[in-house]
């Protein structure tokens, strides 16, 4: 099973690093799409299907939390799992992101293992590509 991933970050360098980590994590990636902010992400999503979105919060034009709101309003896009990856790691900010629909949270600075672990949890796939159903409740997720 291979996946389409959308990475949303205003930093080219950060997008390149995340892409590299996802690739070396062993996930079968079909397409890796990229956007520089939430608005660009919506444009990409209008023309492409993705299986998971990895998004920064602090971005110009449309930030990651606003992107979550827009996705939630859209019947087609609201089921796409979103992993927030950000420097803003207060527990309140994390709760806010989860309330708005985020499925995972990664704090910067991160290690490659952090991204791999959250990807496993969120899309329910092991590194060898096997599907694993996520049976956790919201309360069991790591905030």
């Amino acid at each position, binding site marked *: 099973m291979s996946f389409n991933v959308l990475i949303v970050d205003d930093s*080219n360098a950060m997008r390149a690093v995340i892409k590299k980590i996802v690739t070396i994590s062993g996930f079968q990636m079909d397409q890796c799409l990229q956007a520089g902010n939430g608005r660009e992400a919506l444009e990409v999503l209008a023309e492409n299907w993705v299986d998971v979105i990895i998004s920064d919060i602090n*971005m110009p034009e449309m930030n990651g939390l606003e992107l979550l709101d827009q996705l939630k309003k859209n019947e087609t896009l609201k089921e796409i799992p979103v992993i927030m990856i950000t420097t803003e790691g207060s527990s*309140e900010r994390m709760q806010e992101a989860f309330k708005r629909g985020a499925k995972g949270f990664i704090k910067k600075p991160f290690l490659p293992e952090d991204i791999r672990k959250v990807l496993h949890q969120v899309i329910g796939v092991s590194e060898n590509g096997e599907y694993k159903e996520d049976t956790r409740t919201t309360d069991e997720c790591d905030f």
Partner: protein
Amino acid sequence: MENTKKIQELLMNAIFEVFEKMFFVFLEPLDEDVKYEMIASINFIGPIKGDIDVFFTRDLASAMVQNMLGVDEVGVNLKLIEDCAKEAVNMIGGNFLQKYDSSKVFDLSIPVFKNESGVFATQEIAASETVWNLSFESNESLLGVKMSIS
């Protein structure tokens, strides 16, 4: 005074963590002025508000790009340097604030990058209790960090 020392320790730990984890750059504290060639800045608002400026030499910024992206010197360009410098100040700000009080929400601005040179004088205003001036060295490349809180 005690609080000032604690804040400095938190800031230093945040800086070390960011540079080691994301850029594989190991910094040593230094007590020298830094002749910088670029600056990345950010401000934050919350229970406390303030500004952070990071002063880079070109050598250090180039090493950050090379280490983070796994490219050689030829693959380094100003756009990538700007990206890495802005990410660095963003992560230092976020990491420091999380260490300062992770139960509170702080809003960080979008980082700003300036390609300008000058001298970051560590000694001049280091005595203030609301301004922290720190300098570091890694493989003979220098870095300066200034944080002010109001």
